[in-house]
């Protein structure tokens, strides 16, 4: 019954999305606030309907209703409740419903937004409606999560046990809030292309409406991607956290485009300049989101992340992507030349720095796109099957981003319109000196000595110190009484603190990524209980291995002791090898020993025999220096995004309330 209601609610949501589109278009054409208002009502009702459908699906998973095909294929009665619920978005159908929920939910928030001009809002609501119609129709007609099975099986096939993990339970919702949040930027961009004029007051206001959406989506995406990387790090047991896999790139490209968008939207908001470019990026960010959905769900690319692979559905998604983005960019090509935002600026200025940032971000994004799609292009061209691995990205993406990072701290110090480069260099000179010192210290401290890694350490330090230098400058620390500085610090807008946190967080990430990649040490060897293995300054001893029983798995649990080489600072870790009878699968549960910023990462492998014939387990140990920072940095960045969002000037759904007259 609940399942039928869910299916009904989904179809109702599709009808409401059609209604929303129709009424918004009619309301816009006839300039009828009544029709446009009804469209906004339909947007809200549609979101409620999708929420009901989603709740029904979760209910079906919670009670393990195996008469629903999706539940039977992805759940199992033995699973803990959290993973039963999370399995609702673990499959293609369920995750598509989640996509629709975010799409219509954000659409409903957009329809409640106050202060948007009538035409712009009606057009944006109509565009959001079209997106809703396309994706809901795709869900209803090709991927209905409520399809029944007859006869119903007694037991489900269970979700892939690798996905049975807290980080992965929350990874998709956050990721989708980011992916699909860009749909609102997309709709606002389309609306601006339809309604926009070469008007000096239109574009700053538009920038102010777009920015919170870009910021929120980007922050969600940051957290979502980081959770995914963290999951890959400790669940796959391969010792790494980013593999430049096509599916990872698919989530990374919208992030890069979104980062470019939120920077260029600042220029549009403050100065009315770059109107066409900001619109383009708004279209691009959601296009990359849809491209990602296509790449992940169609199986056209070989990836370590095999999602429900179905070429036919992939083709449908490609059609949706082609239709929406094709129409959007055609509209852009037609209308953009007329969009003159005004706002001239000198090359050396805040605007100039942001343009340069955008240039690097989009160029880096393009190299990622090329690396991801080139195997497809080549296969279509001459049938050769190739893969492009991490070295390609290390040679293209990394230098471009490194060049971008050099200018990051300078940006916020430059004045709008015309900046004083010499002044900025003077004010950053202390940070430059310290960063160089730290690079040298890094070169001395780590073995083996690597010049590039040391340069990377310097770059990370430069990002943090340069960003802090800007705050020091703004609050006039060390230049007057401390109380005065504190008063100034309190007076700084939240948005400025957001920028500071985001840029410093980037530096923290760079430090972690550089040191972990450059200096990690790996060791592997079969160990009988009592034997030890060494990795760098750590010694790991296998104490015992016993069999333990989990809720839906059996495991070999290894107890190991991690000590320094001289036996000091002992600490216990457990690493498991779990066998899930439901799917006949084995997974690895990594043992992680947090040592300050470092991780000692222990994987228990297969059981075998030593030469003497005793039972032994192959044990693999990584010493990952500064690995904490890799995940801490993006968390700080997302926090920066949140702070900026809370800035009064940008508050959600609030236009400029009663401008002082």
């Amino acid at each position: 019954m609940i399942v039928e209601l869910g299916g009904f609610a989904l179809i109702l949501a599709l009808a409401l999305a059609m209604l929303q589109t129709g009424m918004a278009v009619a309301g816009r054409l006839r300039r009828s606030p009544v029709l446009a208002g009804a469209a906004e009502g339909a947007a809200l009702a549609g979101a409620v309907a999708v929420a009901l459908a989603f709740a029904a699906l979760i209910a079906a998973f919670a009670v393990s209703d195996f008469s629903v095909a999706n539940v039977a294929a992805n759940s199992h009665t033995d699973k803990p409740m959290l993973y039963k619920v999370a399995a609702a978005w673990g499959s293609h159908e369920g995750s598509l419903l989640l996509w629709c929920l975010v799409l219509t939910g954000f659409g409903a928030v957009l329809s409640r937004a106050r202060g948007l001009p009538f035409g712009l809002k009606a057009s944006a609501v109509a565009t959001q409606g079209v997106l809703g119609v396309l994706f809901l129709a795709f869900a209803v007609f090709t991927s209905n999560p409520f399809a029944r099975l007859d006869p119903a099986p007694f037991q489900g096939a269970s979700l892939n046990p690798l996905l049975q993990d807290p980080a992965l339970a929350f990874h998709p919702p956050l990721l989708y809030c980011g992916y699909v949040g860009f749909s609102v930027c997309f709709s606002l961009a389309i609306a601006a292309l339809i309604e926009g004029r070469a008007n000096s007051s239109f574009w700053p206001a538009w920038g102010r409406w777009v920015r919170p959406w870009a910021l929120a989506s980007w922050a969600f995406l940051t957290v979502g991607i980081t959770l995914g990387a963290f999951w890959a790090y400790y669940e796959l047991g391969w010792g790494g956290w980013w593999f430049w896999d096509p599916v990872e790139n698919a989530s990374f490209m919208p992030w890069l485009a979104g980062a470019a968008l939120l920077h260029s939207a600042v220029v549009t908001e403050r100065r009315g300049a770059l109107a066409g470019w900001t619109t383009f990026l708004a279209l691009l960010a959601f296009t990359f989101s849809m491209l990602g959905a296509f790449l992940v769900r169609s199986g056209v690319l070989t990836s370590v992340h095999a999602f429900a692979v179905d070429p036919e559905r992939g083709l449908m998604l490609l059609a949706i992507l082609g239709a929406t983005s094709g129409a959007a960019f055609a509209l852009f090509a037609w209308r953009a030349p007329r969009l003159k935002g005004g706002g001239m600026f000198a090359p050396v200025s805040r605007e100039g720095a942001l343009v340069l940032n955008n240039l690097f971000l989009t160029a880096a994004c393009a190299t990622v796109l090329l690396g991801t799609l080139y195997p497809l292009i080549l296969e279509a061209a001459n049938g050769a099957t190739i893969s492009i691995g991490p070295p390609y990205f290390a040679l293209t993406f990394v230098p471009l981003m490194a060049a971008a990072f050099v200018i990051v701290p300078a940006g916020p110090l430059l004045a709008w319109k015309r900046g004083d480069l010499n002044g900025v260099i003077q004010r950053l000179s202390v940070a430059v000196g310290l960063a160089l010192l730290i690079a040298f210290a890094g070169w001395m401290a780590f073995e083996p000595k690597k010049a590039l890694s040391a340069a990377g350490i310097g770059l990370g330090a430069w990002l943090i110190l340069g960003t802090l230098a800007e705050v020091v400058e703004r609050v006039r620390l060390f230049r007057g009484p401390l109380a005065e500085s504190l008063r100034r610090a309190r007076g700084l807008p939240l948005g400025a603190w957001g920028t500071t946190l985001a840029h410093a967080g980037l530096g923290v990430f760079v430090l972690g990524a550089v040191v972990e990649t450059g200096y990690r040490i790996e060791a592997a060897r079969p160990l009988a209980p009592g034997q030890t293995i060494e990795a760098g300054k750590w010694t790991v001893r296998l104490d015992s291995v016993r069999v333990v029983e989990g809720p839906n798995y059996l495991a070999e649990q290894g107890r190991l002791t991690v000590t320094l080489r001289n036996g000091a600072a002992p600490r216990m870790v457990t690493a498991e090898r779990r066998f899930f009878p439901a799917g006949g699968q084995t997974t690895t549960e990594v043992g992680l020993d947090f040592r300050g910023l470092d991780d000692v990462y222990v994987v228990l492998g297969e059981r075998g025999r030593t030469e003497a014939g005793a039972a032994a387990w192959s044990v693999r140990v990584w010493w990952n220096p500064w690995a904490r920072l890799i995940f801490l940095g993006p968390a700080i960045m997302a926090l920066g995004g949140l702070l900026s969002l809370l800035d009064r000037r940008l508050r959600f759904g609030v236009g400029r309330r009663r401008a002082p007259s």
Partner: protein
Amino acid sequence: MSWLPKSPKARRRLWVVAAVAPVLALAVGLSLYAMRDNVTFFFSPSEATPDKAPAGRVVRLGGLVETGSVARAGDGEVMFVITDNAAATRVSYQGDLPDLFREGQGVVTQGTFLPDRSFRATQVLAKHDETYMPREVADRLKAKGEWRPEGGAAARGVPTR
């Protein structure tokens, strides 16, 4: 500077070009350079002829793990045979096999051919899904009429055995 255009608009355009051109050139240059050396070709055993996959070049080799071919030496060295049922290649690998590696199922390895045409794998690629067949392997098998979607998913024993 007298050689700069007079109109501010043209001047700005010139600045934009001056900024865009080097970044674009850098991106294109790096991409072309990186593409030359870091593209890995995929072969099945019968395609991996010495002229296409000379010894020492990093390639990917994929196919089915021949049933009964997996042998482990004490030092973590694993040997197995990859076959596409038209040809077979001996593969050696040092390290732990991924959790989803099974006899009779599809696998993709990365490494180099040795002069004796056996394959030294540096990486055995794991897939997240036990029913998943690497697409290149599936395509090759389909082309040879050896495609069996069920893939023989006989699970190996529980770790308590």
